[in-house]
């Protein structure tokens, strides 16, 4: 029963509650979170805007089907912890997805309010209840089924691996997560910066999983330290989930790419996020000293946005994003682009690098670019950028970050030859069950789809967990295995 007594017409009159933000001038000098989170009043007011549709389109728009209408209703009734446990039924990492999901194209993009007014701030509300729960006492650990005696190895501790671990351990399976790096969390830890996703939040979520009984082993590179076959035959794991992400950086093969000062986004962000190079010399890992320098980042996605805003925070004099289409085509989240512009990031659109130029010492001094114009739509449906002959120009910079996406890291695949991969090296998995061609082995997340989103990786992790459970319960491996696409 709804406890929201406002008539629908009144609800639509309430303006969408704004997210309190750290001042742009202030935040471009620190790594503290940009969004400060709704207040109790703000969240309750926002919740009251919900039309409580009989067939909520927002739920259909959520890749994991979070019961949005129900949790929002609990907020409007003041039951924030109830709302948190309602979300947790479908989403084990709400404090994370509430911060990094592209809500504008998912839940909020489907919100009926959005047709005439501003859509409901689902992401803000999700974040609010997750934070409220963290600050006001957890709802307690979910119930754990009695041990089944079955053991599952999960390779990779990103959102796909973590969400699968959460489900499997609840069903009574013994779960070990193997991680190559020294910290758990995948891209959440080494890729997405502190100012969008505080690492403390990731650690807390990981701790909860640890308390539920998930075992974490860092410093294990599967394919090198141990192979999948050894995990299954020698260590006795009954099933394996590969959730290794898509972490192989792409370069452009341009002249000068080896100059000092040219980074992949992975290296630049890893040095800062995982190794805390922003706090050098308190931490030992260095990174390019951006202070007072002009820097550029190439790309238009979330990764590029994160890299350019990180460089600004490291003290760059100017930070420019070079993108070959226009702002309208940028794949990054709208909010991130807005935040970046507020922070003084320059957008250099319709331009593409053709070479990196350096000095005698091998240090980068400039990026040579060419101007672009938009031509006919390409396969992606976006108008394709076409270079304008003779329009080359030089942008003087001391550091450049290449953020053009990532590919499949082959370490696990090459050490598991009987597991099929597709043309691009991603693991071939049955879309329904996420079974691979190797019995007992499943795969989920970016290593199957290529770089996608946190919530899609989590959804895939849960799908895989469900089929792993079915496999462990029945002991049957459906004969039909996926063929390489």
């Amino acid at each position, binding site marked *: 029963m709804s406890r929201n007594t406002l008539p629908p017409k009144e609800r639509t009159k309430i303006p969408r509650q704004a997210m309190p933000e750290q001042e742009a001038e202030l935040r471009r000098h620190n790594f503290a979170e940009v969004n400060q989170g709704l207040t109790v009043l703000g969240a309750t007011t926002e919740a009251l805007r919900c039309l409580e549709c009989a067939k909520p389109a927002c739920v259909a728009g959520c890749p994991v089907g979070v019961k949005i209408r129900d949790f929002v209703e609990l907020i409007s009734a003041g039951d924030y912890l109830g709302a948190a446990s309602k979300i947790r039924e479908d989403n084990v990492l709400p404090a994370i997805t509430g911060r990094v999901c592209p809500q504008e194209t998912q839940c909020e993009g489907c919100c009926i309010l959005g047709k005439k007014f501003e859509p409901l701030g689902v992401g803000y509300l999700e974040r609010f209840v997750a934070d409220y729960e963290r600050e006001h006492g957890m709802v307690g650990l979910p119930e754990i089924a009695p041990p089944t005696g079955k053991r599952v190895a999960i390779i990779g501790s990103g959102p796909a691996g973590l969400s699968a671990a959460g489900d499997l351990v609840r069903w009574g399976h013994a779960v070990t997560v193997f991680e190559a790096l020294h910290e758990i969390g995948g891209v959440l830890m080494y890729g997405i910066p502190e100012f969008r996703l505080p690492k403390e939040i990731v650690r807390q979520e990981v701790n909860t999983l640890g308390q539920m009984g998930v075992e974490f082993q860092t410093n294990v590179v599967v394919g090198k330290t141990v192979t999948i076959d050894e995990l299954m035959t020698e260590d006795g794991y009954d099933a394996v989930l590969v959730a290794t992400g898509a972490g192989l950086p792409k370069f452009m093969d341009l002249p000068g790419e*080896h100059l000092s000062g040219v980074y992949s986004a992975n*290296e630049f962000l890893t040095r800062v996020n995982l190794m805390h190079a922003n706090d050098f010399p*308190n931490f030992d890992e260095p990174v390019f000293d951006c202070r007072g320098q002009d820097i550029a980042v190439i790309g238009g996605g979330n990764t590029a946005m994160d890299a350019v805003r990180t460089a600004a925070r490291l003290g760059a004099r100017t930070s420019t994003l070079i993108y070959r289409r226009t702002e309208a085509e940028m794949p990054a989240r709208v909010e991130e682009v807005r935040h970046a512009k507020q922070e003084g990031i320059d957008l250099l659109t319709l331009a593409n690098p053709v070479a990196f130029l350096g000095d005698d010492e091998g240090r980068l001094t400039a990026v040579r670019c060419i101007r672009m114009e938009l031509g006919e739509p390409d396969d992606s449906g976006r108008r394709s950028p076409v270079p304008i002959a003779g329009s080359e120009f030089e942008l003087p910079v001391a550091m450049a970050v290449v953020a053009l996406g990532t590919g499949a890291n082959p370490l696990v695949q090459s050490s598991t030859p009987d597991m099929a991969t597709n043309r691009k090296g991603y693991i071939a998995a049955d879309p329904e069950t996420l079974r691979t061609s190797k019995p007992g082995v499943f795969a989920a997340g970016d290593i199957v789809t290529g770089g996608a989103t946190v919530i899609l990786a989590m959804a895939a992790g849960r799908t895989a967990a469900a089929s792993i459970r079915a496999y462990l319960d029945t002991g049957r491996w459906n004969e039909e295995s996926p063929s390489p696409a």
Partner: protein
Amino acid sequence: MFPILEAEFLAPEIKRFVIEAPRVARKRKAGQFVIVRLHERGERIPLTIADGDADRGTITLIVQGVGKTTRLMNLLEAGDSVLDLVGPLGEPSDVRTYGTVVVIGGGVGTAIAWPTARAMKEAGNRVVAIVGARTKELVLLEPELQAIADELEIVTDDGSYGRKGVVVDPLCERIMRGSRIDLVLAIGPVRMMQAVAEMTRPSGIRTIVSLNSLMVDGTGMCGGCRVATKDGTRFACVDGPEFDAHIVDFDVLARRNRTYSACEAQSLKAFQANPKAALDAVRHSCRLDQSHRDESMAEVASR
């Protein structure tokens, strides 16, 4: 956490560690390396696995103190621990029966070349070892090499031991004399490896070098270790660390390795001002890790 079982100086500033790392010990092959992080605020540095004992579950690392992290590591003793250690990484050496293999080690490169030299001998090759060092007391692994090499030649810059000169001299002589050489393996400073590559290039002697590029993750994720080769960009951590010397652009490698020289100098200076504080940081990190472990063990036991 990875306990150090043995630690002893082989030469001034060059220390040998035996570290408990059972999984790595079981899997490692000649030519592979590990990445080590000493403490919570530490950087990740690559170190070659010089030896190992699968039964005992240990690996051996030989570390030359050059900057902050390696000098700090060389303060550690048996009973201390390393916070993180991951591996074995990289492709193993391509050990086959080539015929006569000349192994050239410069400085700590000798330690890096040692496991491959031994594997080459075991594979039935005639092994000629040429070892170079600045001065007598820096000559590494002489008895070990003596035991496996068919010929051992030692060269010091100052002539205090062996012959005076650089490691390329004996190689040059052999090539001039027309001695049979089927493979050269050269490991040491970039400029030394470059000189060897130039020496063997005209006669087309197959030459392998192990590249010491800067690394972060060691798994192909960051691209920081990239090397320029005639065949395009390669990642030293996953495609290497060994490469055909005749396709590598050593100038690019040398320049890339200087990327952080200012930061490195700053780190080293701060470290030298107070090495004890840095050592305490390592011991503190490792204790934290231990107590955290004890806690979770207790928790598991009480469930």
